[in-house]
């Protein structure tokens, strides 16, 4: 099993037209400061290490960083935390990402099923997926229309469509991303598992962005 880093995974997805949140790679603390001032605060800082699959669990993620001094603190804390959680973790640097705006978090996934081959998954992020297992599957490739049916099939659809006076989310853009990810799965058979978790879906007309991605190859 060969796990791609977040950066490699994001590049593979971006090449297929999946929008990725604005991201810079920083090799040093100074580079991180430069990147953050270019992107604009607030930012997110994430460790870039081939040995760290689940960054949050290893203390490798800091969100809501508002200025340079907190960025410098965050940089050092992440290095300390990751080193203590993962023995011999090779830290290649960190990703500086724009802090995503208001939206709804969803999960877009892919997996190679032993009987069906490449399949696509969709679910709402957080508790909806973890506890209620409110997810839908389709066989790749999936058209944008089929992707929309897939979204509608979940109970989460009503959240995206604008439950409780929330503004409706960009379901059309989400359907497009699902379809594009399914095409990637279908055409690149090296992919064994894929998670975009989360994909942030903004208000209708404002699209969506992958905030994190994990791809496993054979």
């Amino acid at each position, binding site marked *: *099993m060969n*796990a791609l880093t977040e950066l490699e995974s994001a590049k593979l997805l971006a090449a297929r037209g999946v929008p990725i949140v604005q991201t810079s790679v920083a090799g040093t603390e100074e580079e991180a400061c430069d990147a953050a001032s270019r992107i604009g605060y607030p930012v997110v800082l994430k460790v870039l290490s081939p040995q760290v*699959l689940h960054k949050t669990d290893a203390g490798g993620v800091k969100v809501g960083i508002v200025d340079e001094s907190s960025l410098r603190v965050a940089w050092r804390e992440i290095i300390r935390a990751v080193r203590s959680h993962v023995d011999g973790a090779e830290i290649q640097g960190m990703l500086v990402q724009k802090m995503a705006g208001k939206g709804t978090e969803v*999960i877009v*996934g*892919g*997996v190679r*099923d*032993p*009987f*069906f*081959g490449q*399949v696509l*998954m969709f*679910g709402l992020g957080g508790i909806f*997926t973890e506890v209620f*297992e409110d*997810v*839908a*599957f*389709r*066989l790749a490739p*999936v*058209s944008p*229309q*089929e992707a*929309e*049916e*897939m979204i*509608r*099939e*979940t*109970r989460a*659809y009503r959240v995206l469509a604008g439950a409780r006076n929330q503004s409706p989310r960009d379901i059309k853009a989400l359907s497009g991303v699902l379809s594009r990810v399914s095409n990637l799965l279908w055409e690149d058979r090296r992919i064994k*598992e*894929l*998670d975009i*978790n989360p994909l942030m879906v903004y208000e209708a007309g404002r699209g969506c962005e992958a905030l994190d991605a*994990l791809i*496993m190859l054979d």
Partner: protein
Amino acid sequence: MGKAARCAGLDAFFKPRGCAVIGASRDPQKAGHQILRNILDAGFTGGVYPVNPNESEIAGVRCHRSLDEVDGIVELVVISTPSHLVDGVIADLSRRMERVGDVRAVITAAAGFGETGTAEGRNRQDALVGCCRRWGIRQMGPNCVGIIDNVNRLDTTFIMGTRRKPGGISFVSQSGALGAWLVESWSSQPEPAALGKFISLGNMADVEMIEVIEYLGQDADTRVIGLYVEGHPQARSLVEVAGRVARRKPVVVLKVGRTEQGSAAAHSHTGSLAGSDRVYDGAFRQYGILRAGTVEEFSDMLQTFNSAGLPDGNRVFLVTQAGGPGIYCADTLSSFREVEFARIAASTKEALVKALPPFASVCRPEGHADITAAATIEQHCFAVEAVMRDPGVDAVILVTVPTLYLPPPALASALVETLRRLKAEGIEKPFLPVLLSGDWVKEGRMTLERNGVLTFETPDRAARAMAALIRYNNILGRDERGRGSGPVEVRAL
């Protein structure tokens, strides 16, 4: 062999010009006896040849010492001999093929083959299938219950107590026991289900499910296909083929293994959630294959698709004569997003209020008229007729609990008459009646069903069957508008 040739090959299972039973028995407790009985009872029109070296006659039919000795044409051979004797059966079959060469299909009812998981069982299966392949003979099973074709009057199963009613339902089962369960329970309904073909696949050593689906898709006698699926190594081809057929006729699956857990070895969220049943479920939806949740729902869906036409739309009107059962039905019906309660015209409402008992509740809420327990047979028929005539209604459910002054057979006859009159005027909409309940309404239900009107055991089951009709309509509409763009059902909460 090309695909067309393979499909044509299955004809020999259903329309053979003669049928031999190897291992036919005089002992009524042996499968080899019941198989012969069923072939005779079903009224098979070709030659019937029991084979057993120790008997001269079974069930009034001359018995043969070997298959090779049979002098008539034998196109189908049913093997019920125990599996340890398979070498002798293979030798007999080979001799006949060398000498006459007429056998085209073999159904192996006997168990003790590949399903045992032993080297011995697998070797026996390989030897049997190898022999059949050599002679171009198709093989069903081993370890299967057999096949029924009520249209061609053939029954090679050892299922007991079958009441036969030919019709458009074809049912394919990966489990012999589940197959027998349904066939038996269909026989004990007030009126048997309209079964065309029943196919028990057994070990699928040669004939397997995908080919059978393709065959039934082309079979003019089959109106609806039911599949009991446990799993299939070529799952993707299975749904692709079934999905193609589903554009022409409904395909309903009962798939077990719902609780299977996702792979524990998965590294991603997606991997850990991808239990194979969830993937099956998504694939069924994607390809327009209807999934039943229970055996009862499966049975109801098959019978409904066979007997009721498809509605023009999703607007359902509910006529009830009893409060509780009526609300029960409305609850189930409204749990399906694809179902809409019909809004009838003001003139229809007025007519109903005028004709029904004073306490009748008409369209409060919309789409539901409770005609109350005071309603007479005439008032039942009036209400059904009025809503059937209303252009805002696509389908009707009737729930009634006939009491002592509503003799069920008389009510049923009056409803049949009303429907016949409407049909003569060109008004035909799905009408799903529920007469409650048990033996008291059995004769009434028989009257309706003998006149082509399917009845339901409970209000809940009628509501689910109605939702399935509408769901299939949506599937067909989705294809007309381009794959995937139609309205879809939302999973009931």
